[in-house]
């Protein structure tokens, strides 16, 4: 194929049935969000690189393309994730608003593949909830995530809940940065976690236990009067509430769940469907990001990639 006609690697295109299906799924999600008083937010394509730095998420920085603005605007970054943009919008443009619900839908571009098929572009759809009581807002977003999963055309959706406070409490006294722990937990390797425990000077098995943690471990942790106990109680309570509210989606707890980007600091979650090889939905609490943007207020949200949803629908249909 001559170069002019060759597609750029990692950039998907849709036509006909696929395009219709994408628009249909987007429409269903927009209806779901709007029915719950979420207001649409259409952010700019470019952002300040400082916003990515404020998120203190090394993996998000790794995925963000930065270039020099030919119009003299200095360094600018192409959006790789909507959540920091929504956070910046609320912090900068809605300074007197105590509570806000926003949703968005649009493309993001990553510097490196974000899916095993080499795709770098995502069609990110999501909803963010700012302000309000934390427990209530978490519940609202978790229920929204469960309802979103339920509208997909796949079998046996599962919503998995974790809490970053568990890992943070366990490694707080260690000498190893949190990002390295997160990397090992994302691979669920007890062998590597044991090695890191030694390097961090933490008691043997203290973090490895999290990898094998079940509901009994969580119940025991919940009985403690410290940060670990608080995180465990919050996780168990939210899991029970969302399971009761949306029974058609299976809810599980996974104390070792670690999100893609590390700007989260409380409840985190991922959605799956049987037969599809990767997560269909992500989300969690990110109060620390709002704090870093100079607007300390609670924040929690969810996002998904419509291209993955298209692939999952095709997989389920086959």
């Amino acid at each position, binding site marked *: 194929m001559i170069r002019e006609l060759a597609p750029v690697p990692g950039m998907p295109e849709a036509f006909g049935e696929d395009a219709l299906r994408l628009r249909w799924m987007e429409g269903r999600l927009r209806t779901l969000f709007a029915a719950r008083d979420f207001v649409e937010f259409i952010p700019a394509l470019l952002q300040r690189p400082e916003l990515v730095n404020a998120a203190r998420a090394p993996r998000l920085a790794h995925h963000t393309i930065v270039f020099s603005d030919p119009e003299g605007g200095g360094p600018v970054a192409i959006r790789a994730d909507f959540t920091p943009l929504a956070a910046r919008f609320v912090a900068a443009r809605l300074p007197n608003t105590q509570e806000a619900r926003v949703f968005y839908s649009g493309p993001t571009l990553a510097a490196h593949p974000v899916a*095993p*098929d080499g795709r770098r572009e995502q069609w990110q759809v999501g909803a963010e909830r700012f302000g309000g009581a934390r427990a209530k807002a978490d519940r609202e977003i978790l229920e929204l995530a469960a309802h979103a999963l339920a509208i997909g055309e796949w079998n*046996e959706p*599962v919503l*998995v809940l974790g809490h970053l406070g568990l890992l943070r409490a366990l490694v707080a006294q260690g000498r190893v940065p949190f990002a390295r722990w997160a990397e090992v937990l*994302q*691979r*669920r*390797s*007890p*062998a*590597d976690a044991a090695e890191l425990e030694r390097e961090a000077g933490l008691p043997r098995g203290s973090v490895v236990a999290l*990898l094998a943690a079940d509901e009994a471990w969580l119940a025991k942790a919940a009985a403690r009067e410290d940060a670990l106990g608080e995180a465990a109680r919050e996780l168990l309570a939210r899991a029970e509430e969302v399971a009761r509210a949306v029974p058609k989606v299976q809810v*599980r707890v*996974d104390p070792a769940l670690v999100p893609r980007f590390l700007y989260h600091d409380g409840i985190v979650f*991922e959605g*799956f*469907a*049987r*037969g*599809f*090889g*990767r*997560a269909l939905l992500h989300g969690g609490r990110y109060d620390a990001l709002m704090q870093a943007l100079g607007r300390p207020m609670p924040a929690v949200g969810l996002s998904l990639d419509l291209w993955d949803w298209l692939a999952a629908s095709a997989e389920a249909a086959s």
Partner: protein
Amino acid sequence: MLRLAIPKGRLLAPSLQVLAQAGLVLAEDPQGSRKLSFAGTWHEVPVQAFVIRAQDVPVFVERGAADLGIAGRDLLAEGRPRVFEPVDLGIGRCRLVVAAPEKIAQRGLPAPGARVRVATKYTNLARAWFAARGVEAEVVKLYGSVELAPAVGLAERIVDLVETGGTLRANGLIEEATILEVSSRLIVNPAAWRTKEALVRLVFAVQRACKEEHA
């Protein structure tokens, strides 16, 4: 149905052994067969086992074509696939090392600020290891016979897997440093882990079998 990706070659026999100890029964023995796919059961759960190149196992598991597989720590560290690594099986033990001809090795490892030419198929691991020591590595990617590279002037050093060290010695190379202790790991697709309960039970069964084996 559970789908397993099992590596061909030297890891095939020990992989089959550990899976059999965990209760996997295949309808026929993949060893010596030219077939790539084998039906079987694990405690009445239907299983399809694919016998494929070791390098392809992480790809099958990451993309969900297989729920579970067996892969060397070297491949996982080099490629960083998004998979879980819940069990170190302790099979296929070897080391990823830096080696050089005697004359070069006698001078010691390159000092910070130096630049070296290294032949390897582990380009990411080699670059990262030298970079962590302040050394810039010009990496020559080879797919095999890496030990030949210093002799023909392709590189001063190599980074390669070593089991006994026999091949290094036969080619006049001396081991200078170990980058990674390698053994094979059970790897799992994260989405399958969350949606297939039988898979979680199989992983725990393999874990138990390994503990009994090494007890």
